[in-house]
């Protein structure tokens, strides 16, 4: 059988619901509710109601055990044809982009002609679990056959402290540090100042506010539960206001605040990918090509790499494969988990010693034109419902490239566990 050449893959469009802060207007919405709403909005926008698509990939970072088939359940409850297959993806905050990569690869290989990738997360409807000691005790008791012995063992092993439930925490399993605490170390190492972090935060809000005001978001977002605009957006914030906040990570002298770190939030997003032919048959105009992607992982434990700096490694590998320089892009979509992580990423690419010793490069990647960074705002303003961020960014960048007519964009997303997912879109 002759090998087939990969086919060009296009981002046709995307849809998300407005992102909101935790325990706000989506408090009673589940992952499945929000994801279904985002997918229904996508189906409405691109005429997919009752239509099967080739495959559907999605996920959530925080999910219940009963949501094991979340993506398939979303398809079955959505306007898409029930004949659409679906699978779950999980790669922490890289979930949404990794889902898009998986769908794009299937399209490129000719296995499917169209697909949907997305993600959803809620920190309001989070899975609270049985206390681990109690769970293990109950499992042990369940294995005992004699009911009398069962009751006796349960009484013997039960401790009052076992009624305390396990609440999910935003903490690295192997270091015990929260993501913010990890990033505070990175901020210190790279001398990322409070002012620079606040400046990036301020600009993120300004740019997202302008994107909403000009109607730019109108074909990227559909209202949900009466919410029409991202709830975390603070259009009226100022450097003075940001400067007043107390640090939340890194101790008294820390530089990271509740504003220059993304808040816990709720939301969902989905993007439609396909071949040019598939799009044209349906009268749809594809926006940008999904060209390449790379995932990197680093040893943040023994080698003490910055937990969220894996994209620093992923990008040069992807650039080399495509014969590109870091400066060969018209847009940079770098996920702002924390202002400090975004700025440390840029600084690492500029640093000759780091690029040589860690990345094995003769020359540093160099700096980027900051006016091309997150031009419609980033996660600091939009907020960051973990698995939903990838879909937001892919849809944003595809629209930017379509508007520009031709050009190239870079996506970079950091994820828990010392991982980074990056991609190139072109038009």
């Amino acid at each position, binding site marked *: 059988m002759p090998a087939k050449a990969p086919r060009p893959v296009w981002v046709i469009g995307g849809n998300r619901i407005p992102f909101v802060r935790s325990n706000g207007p989506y408090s*009673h919405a589940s992952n499945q509710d929000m994801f*279904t709403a985002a997918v229904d909005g996508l189906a409405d926008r691109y005429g997919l109601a009752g239509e099967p698509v080739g495959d559907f990939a999605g996920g959530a970072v925080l999910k219940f055990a009963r949501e094991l088939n979340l993506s398939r359940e979303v398809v079955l409850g959505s306007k898409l044809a029930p004949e659409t297959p679906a699978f779950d993806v999980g790669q922490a905050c890289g979930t949404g982009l990794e889902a898009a990569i998986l769908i794009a690869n299937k399209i490129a290989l000719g296995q499917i002609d169209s697909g949907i990738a997305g993600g959803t997360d809620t920190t309001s409807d989070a899975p609270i679990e049985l206390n681990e000691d109690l769970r293990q005790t109950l499992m042990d008791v369940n294995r005992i056959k004699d009911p009398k012995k069962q009751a006796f063992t349960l009484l013997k092993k039960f401790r009052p402290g076992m009624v305390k439930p396990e609440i999910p925490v935003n903490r690295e399993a192997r270091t015990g540090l929260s993501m913010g605490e990890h990033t505070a170390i990175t901020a210190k190492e790279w001398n990322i100042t409070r002012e620079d972090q606040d400046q990036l935060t301020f600009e993120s809000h300004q740019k997202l506010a302008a994107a909403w005001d000009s109607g730019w978001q109108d074909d990227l977002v559909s*209202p949900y539960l009466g919410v*029409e605009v991202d709830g975390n957006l603070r259009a009226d914030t100022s450097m003075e206001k940001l400067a007043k906040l107390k640090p939340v990570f890194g101790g008294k002298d820390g530089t990271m605040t509740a504003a220059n770190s993304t808040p816990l939030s709720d939301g969902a997003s989905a993007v439609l990918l396909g071949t040019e032919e598939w799009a044209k048959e349906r009268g749809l105009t594809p926006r940008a090509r999904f060209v390449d992607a790379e995932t990197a992982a680093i040893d943040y434990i023994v080698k003490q790499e910055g937990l969220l700096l894996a994209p620093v490694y992923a990008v040069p590998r992807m650039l080399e494969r495509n014969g590109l320089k870091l400066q060969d892009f018209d847009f940079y979509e770098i996920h702002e988990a924390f202002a400090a992580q975004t700025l440390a990423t840029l600084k690492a690419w500029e640093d000759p010693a780091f690029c040589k010793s860690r990345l094995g490069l003769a020359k540093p990647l160099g700096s980027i034109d900051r006016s091309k960074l997150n031009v419609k705002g980033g996660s600091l303003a939009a907020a960051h419902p973990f698995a939903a961020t990838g879909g937001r960014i892919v849809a944003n960048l595809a629209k930017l490239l379509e508007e520009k007519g031709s050009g190239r964009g870079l996506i970079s997303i950091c994820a828990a566990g010392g991982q980074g997912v990056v991609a190139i879109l072109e038009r």
Partner: protein
Amino acid sequence: MANVELKRPPGAGGLYLKAAIGMTPLAGNRKKELPDTVFSLAPKAVDVDKLSGFCRVTEHTLTGTLPPVYFNVLAFPLHMALLTSNGFPFPVIGLVHVQNKIEQSRPADVSEEIGLQVSATNLRPHAKGRQFDVITEARVGDELVSKATSTYLRIGGGGDKSLADDKSAGVDYSTLPQVSEWRLAGDLGRRYASVSGDRNPIHMHDLTAKAFGFPKAIAHGMWTKARALAAIDNKLPDAFTADAAFKRPILLPSKVTFGVAERADGLDFTVRNAKKGTPHLDGSIVNG
């Protein structure tokens, strides 16, 4: 024609007290004809928390679109106000909900303000007594988005045996393939009561249900219809008519099966007792 506008929904507790009084001689004179009063609630935003509770209990996805049965929940205080109004021909307790037809012209979003009007019409004989319709109209501005016709039966005088169901006509629901099995918990009536406001004692506890002649608490008919529509949610077009006949009550707890079959212009569905196969609800969707 008279109009009564409720400023705010009254508490259901008071309504059932009024309903209970309606069973006694204190009720005053009952008229022979249905009142021509239209009961209304001014356009009002939907409470998302309450909607999400309804969606959980009926297993709808909270997409922000109002489930078809939800207008019935929003209008429930008006139904009670109508059925317990002075001079209403029948006491509300003892009325049997036999049929519910929802004609939806388009889905309404939770962000839209819904105005509601409820009236009674078409008093007519039934094989076992007399029946009449309660009409519920839901509007966004002047646009009618949903019209529901609930038919109630008062068993007793005025019946016409010649009106017995014609068994030969229509769909044989017993032949629909049973595709799902639902286990309904003993507290389902209380759970639906808390999200719908319908705290009719026949749904709340075995004891209160026994007082009204049921061996156990029974599921709300509108829960059963809402649950059935949730099961076929992704098959419903924007505009449709969803008709359902309530057959035997579901005694709680219960195991029931859901049957469904597609037609060219919609589908037929049924909810049946899992053990005996006897019908609880037979329904149909007609697209457009």
